[in-house]
C-alpha cells in the first residue's frame, strides 16, 4: 500500500490513537487490575497466591474447569457437524434465488433475546414440557424422561445457538469458493465425493476453524445457558466465577478464576492460531 506522506506523521496517529487508547484504557488496564486483584487476599491482608492455589488444591474447583472444557468441546464438535451439512445444503442444493431467504430463516431465532433462548429450551425440555408430552402422549415412553436440568440440556441450548452462528460462517465460506476449483476437479475426473473431500473440505477448513474458535470462546465464557438449563447438577467455570461475586463478593478469587479461564482460552488460541485468520493477511 502506498503511504501518503503529504500530511505529515501527526494525522495517522491521530486516527489510530482513539481506538488504541480505548483498548488500552478499558481492556488492557482492566486486565492488569484484575491480575493485581487476583494476587490480593479477600480480607485485605496483603498479597497472596492463595487464590490460585485454592483452585488447584480443591477438586471441586478444578472440576469446574474440566466440566467447562468437556462441555465446550462437545458443543463445538456437535455444532460443526450439524452446521456443515446444513450450510452445504443451503449453498449447493437450494436454488440460488431462495438462498437468501433460506439463510435468513435459518438464523431468525438468533434474534430472540439471548437470555430468553435458554429459557425457551427449559420450557421445551421440562418434565411436563412439549417434548415429554409428545413422548408420553405417543406411547413411546410411559414415564417422562429427565431432559431439563442436565448437562444434555446445557449442551442442547448451546448447540442451538452455535449451529446458527456456524451455519452463517460456513455458508459464507462455501459461497466464496470459486466454482472453477470444482470444475477443475471434475475435469480431472474426480467424482462429487472426491471433489468434496479433496477440494471443498480442505478449502473451507480455515473458515470452519474460525467458526469453531469463536464457538469455543463464546461457549466457555457463558454463564446464562448452564445456569438456566443445567439445574446446578454440576458447575462450569463462569458459574464458579459468578458465585464468588454473587455470594461473597470475593473479587480476588473471582479474578484469579477468570485469569485461569482466560489462560485456557489463550492456549486454545495458540493451538489453532496458525489456521486462524481473524484479520486480513
Amino acid at each position, binding site marked *: 500500500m502506498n503511504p501518503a506522506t503529504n500530511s505529515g506523521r501527526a494525522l495517522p496517529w491521530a486516527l489510530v490513537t482513539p481506538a488504541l487508547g480505548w483498548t488500552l484504557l478499558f481492556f488492557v488496564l482492566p486486565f492488569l487490575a484484575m491480575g493485581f486483584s487476583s494476587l490480593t487476599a479477600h480480607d485485605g491482608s496483603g498479597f497472596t497466591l492463595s487464590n490460585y492455589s485454592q483452585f488447584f488444591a480443591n477438586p471441586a474447583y478444578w472440576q469446574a474447569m474440566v466440566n467447562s472444557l468437556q462441555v465446550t468441546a462437545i458443543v463445538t464438535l456437535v455444532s460443526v457437524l450439524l452446521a456443515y451439512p446444513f450450510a452445504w445444503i443451503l449453498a449447493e442444493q437450494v436454488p440460488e434465488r431462495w438462498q437468501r431467504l433460506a439463510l435468513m430463516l435459518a438464523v431468525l431465532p438468533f434474534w430472540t433475546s439471548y437470555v430468553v433462548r435458554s429459557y425457551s429450551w427449559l420450557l421445551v425440555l*421440562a418434565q*411436563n414440557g412439549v417434548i415429554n408430552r409428545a413422548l408420553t402422549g405417543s406411547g413411546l415412553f410411559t414415564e417422562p424422561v429427565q431432559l431439563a436440568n442436565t448437562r444434555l440440556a446445557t449442551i442442547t441450548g448451546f448447540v442451538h445457538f452455535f449451529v446458527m452462528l456456524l451455519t452463517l460462517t460456513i455458508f459464507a465460506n462455501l459461497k466464496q469458493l470459486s466454482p472453477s476449483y470444482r470444475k477443475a476437479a471434475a475435469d480431472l475426473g474426480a467424482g462429487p465425493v472426491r471433489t468434496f473431500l479433496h477440494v471443498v473440505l480442505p478449502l473451507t477448513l480455515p473458515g470452519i476453524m474460525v467458526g469453531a474458535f469463536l464457538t469455543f470462546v463464546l461457549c466457555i465464557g457463558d454463564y446464562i445457558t448452564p445456569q438456566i438449563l443445567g439445574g446446578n*447438577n454440576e458447575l462450569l467455570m463462569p458459574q464458579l466465577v459468578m458465585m464468588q461475586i*454473587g*455470594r461473597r463478593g470475593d473479587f480476588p478469587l473471582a479474578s484469579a478464576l477468570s485469569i485461569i479461564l482466560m489462560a485456557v482460552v489463550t492456549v486454545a488460541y495458540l493451538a489453532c492460531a496458525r489456521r486462524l485468520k481473524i484479520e486480513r493477511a
Partner: protein
Amino acid sequence: MSINPNNPLSVLKSHLHATYAAAALLLATGSLAQAADLNALIWCDHADPALLQPFEEANGIKVNVKEFEGTGAGMAIVEQSQPGDWDVMVIDSIDIPRGVEKGLFEPLPEDKLPFADLFPQVKMDGSTVAGKRYGITEKFGYNTIGYNKTKVDPADMQSMAALTGDKYKGKIAIYDYYLPVIGIAALAIGKKTAELTEADLPAIKDELLKMKANAKLVGEVTASQTALATGEVDILVGGGEWVTAGLAKENPALDFSIPKEGAVLWSQSLAMFKDSENKELALKFIQYIMSPEGQARLATSSCYWGMPANAKAALSDEQKKILRFDEQPDFLARAQSYPAPNADLDKKMQDVWTEMLQAQ
C-alpha cells in the same frame, strides 16, 4: 485492598486516578440528580411494584432498588459504594451485628416503630448492640421440607430421613442456598444450628452428598419453585411457606412440614445506613413496610411469600390460612436459628456447598 506505595501499579494508579476521577464526575452527575430518591439494597420480594408503588406515590419519590442474595454479597456491594449511596438495606436478622461492627448502620428510634407488635421470637432481642436496636424484623419463615401432598405421603415428611432414603430418589430438588440447607443437614444429623463449627463440616458434607444423590436439581428460588409447582420434583429441601404459599393458587397440593428434627428459621430485617443523606425518608420507608398494610403486601409479595413479623399485618383470612398463621407458635417453638458463621467458616461452608454441587 491494601496497596503498597512502592508498587508500580500503585504509582500507575495515582496517575490514572485523575482520569477516572473526571470520568467518575461525569458518571456521578446522573446519580446526583436522583438525590431525592430512596436507594434500597433489597431482596427480590421488595422489588414488587405492588409493594413499592403506594409508598412512591404517597411521597412523590422513586425507590431505586438493587437486589442481592446473601449478606456477604450485600456487604461487598456496600463496601464498593461511596458513603451515602444507600439509605436502607434488607439483611438476615442474625447478621445485623456484623453490619454494626463495620459501622454501617444507624440505631432505629424504638418509639417510632412497632417493635411491640412483633412476634416475640423474631424480635431479635439478642441482636441489640449496646442496648440499641439497629434493625427491625420484617418477615420470617422456615427452611424445611416443601412437598406436593398428592404425590408423597405426608407422614414421611415428618422425618428428614425421607430426604436421604430411597423412596423419593429422583423426586427431590435442593434449594440452592448454602446456609439454610447446611442448617437442615445439621438438624438431620442432630446438631444445633447455633453451635456449628468447622469440626461439624465433614458430617454435614456427607449428609449433603446423600441428599444430592437423591436430587434431580439444585435450584435458586425460581428454579426450585418451578420444579415443585410443575411436577418436575415432589419434594424441595429448604422449601417452606416461601415456596408453597405464593403458588397455592396455581397448585393447592403444595404444602410444607416441620419435621421432628426441627427446621431452620429465616428472618429478614430492615436496617438504615448511618451515612444515608435521606434518613427521614428512610425511616418513613421502614415505617411503611412495618405498617399493617405494608406488612401484608410484603408477606404476599410476588417473588416469595413469608410470615409478616408484625402480628397485626392486614392479611385476609384466606392469606392467613395459606401462611398457616395460627400454627406459628408451635412452629416457632420447634425451629432453630439460621446458621451465622464468621467469615472463615462461611468460606468453608461455601466450599462444602461447591463440592456438593460438583458431586456426581
